[in-house]
């Protein structure tokens, strides 16, 4: 139950999460290419998720076996969902000209 995490650590994590959100809002108004923008936003969100999971949800201080049981499966399932994405281009190409 007790571990080395102090209130200071939590506050630091919170400040970094706010800072990363600020960067995201700034990026939203930069005229970037869609793919670069998407990569940057999703990348920042994954970093934020990792911070929340490791510190707030305490996973960093649990046994590593818990992480191995829960997360590789989740990541593989999410990646498998992306099998659908290339089909979106086919659907776009099938639209009758307007």
């Amino acid at each position: 139950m007790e571990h080395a995490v102090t209130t200071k650590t939590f506050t630091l994590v919170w400040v970094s999460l706010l800072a990363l959100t600020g960067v995201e809002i700034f990026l939203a108004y930069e005229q970037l290419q869609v793919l670069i923008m998407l990569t940057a936003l999703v990348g920042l969100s994954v970093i934020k998720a990792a911070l929340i999971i490791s510190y707030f949800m305490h996973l960093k201080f649990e046994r590593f076996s818990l992480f191995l049981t829960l997360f590789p499966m989740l990541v593989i399932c999410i990646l498998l969902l992306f099998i659908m994405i290339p089909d979106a281009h086919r659907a776009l190409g099938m639209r009758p000209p307007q």
Partner: protein
Amino acid sequence: MSDAKVATMASVWEGGGSPYAIGSKKFGMWLFIISDALTFSALLVAYTYLRLATPDWPKPFHFVPSVVFSSIMTFVLLSSSLTMVMAVHNMARGNRKATVGWLLATIVCGAAFCGLHLIEWINLIRHEKVTFFSNPWNVPQFGATFFSLTGLHMTHVAIGVIYLSIIAFAVGRGKFSYEDVEVSGLYWHFVDLVWMFIFPLVYLLSARP
């Protein structure tokens, strides 16, 4: 390998042990979180699919009020995670009074999030004429995905507010243990985590330049 570790592993294989060294409530919540994460992932992928398959996806979110509102909502939800962590931290020290205080702060933040989100929805419905089925840009997929994603997330926040209220009430009356507060914290942080994906993918990518 140390003798202690060999002993732990032996007891795990003999059964009756706790292989993850956590209680069953906490493990149950983790399993729920993983399955709920897949639900939200499926919705986000469906949204991405529809967005890529639709020419001229609308970008209806003005800086004021939509992006400002959703940024404040993000701030409120992130802060509520900090207050939740403080509640769990105080419960670990057996300080029930402080735990109830921090839980109440978390509940207020959660309720504020729901309120702000509803105001933002009403603004979108009244001023931008976006509904679940139709909108001025003739892209009905926009309203369907937007309201499904944000609506499911708002439902999670509302359930979380009720859940934390029950926990706060019981902790105040001297019931429930540290694990119960910690498990409710896991749920709350997960709701926060989901918003970290919905906010950039739904709001920021559709911000009006």
